[in-house]
């Protein structure tokens, strides 16, 4: 009789008590892979944070980020290494995947360190594209020139 009452009262405690929020399990590490078709910049490296420019806006990715798939626009990717230093790259486009295990894959169509880009060339291309806009015939041609303008503007902005 006593034993039954004891068991009934203590059963919830004996069963593992569930909390509202579970503490994050595992180490706070993210495995970061960043590559373009010709060059691998990071391969399953451990970094603290990555800032990426996506079509829906720029955001920073820390370990234990919510899983997401995003598509990139021309812009600067900043990688914050474990030792505190930051490296910047310019990516033209591509995709970024954040998995549930905190691994991040950033696959770029073209990616270069900022010091490989020439701001004067980008400004000249931007002016040329802006003048092409006037002579664009239909909506598709206008959109293509606008993409060129946006990409060059992003390069100029990144280098200034």
């Amino acid at each position, binding site marked *: 009789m006593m034993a039954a009452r004891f068991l009934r009262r203590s059963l919830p405690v004996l069963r593992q008590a569930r909390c509202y929020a579970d503490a994050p399990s595992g180490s706070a590490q993210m495995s970061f892979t960043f590559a373009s078709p010709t060059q691998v910049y990071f391969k399953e490296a451990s970094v603290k944070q990555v800032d990426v420019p996506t079509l829906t806006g720029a955001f920073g990715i820390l370990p234990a980020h919510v899983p997401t798939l995003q598509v990139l626009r021309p812009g600067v990717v900043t990688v914050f290494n474990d030792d505190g230093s930051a490296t910047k790259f310019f990516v033209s*486009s591509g995709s970024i995947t954040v998995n549930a295990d905190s691994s991040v894959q950033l696959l770029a169509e073209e990616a270069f360190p900022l010091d490989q880009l020439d701001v004067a060339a980008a400004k000249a291309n931007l002016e040329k594209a802006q003048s092409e806009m006037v002579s664009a015939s239909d909506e598709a041609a206008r959109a*293509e020139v606008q993409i060129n303008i946006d990409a060059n503007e992003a390069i100029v902005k990144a280098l200034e």
Partner: protein
Amino acid sequence: MVAYWRQAGLSYIRFSAICASAVRAALKPQFKVEALKVAESSVKVYVPKAVACKC
């Protein structure tokens, strides 16, 4: 929220190609040569002429 290029009928592949060529065009000369070499297509399309089948 549809992107302007999507509305004009362009695909993301085309967007990506234009962005990539814009970035390649803005490289410093010593890196540009390498990038252009890599970027040119390595696929050759061969369309055989229609031949009457001997069967």
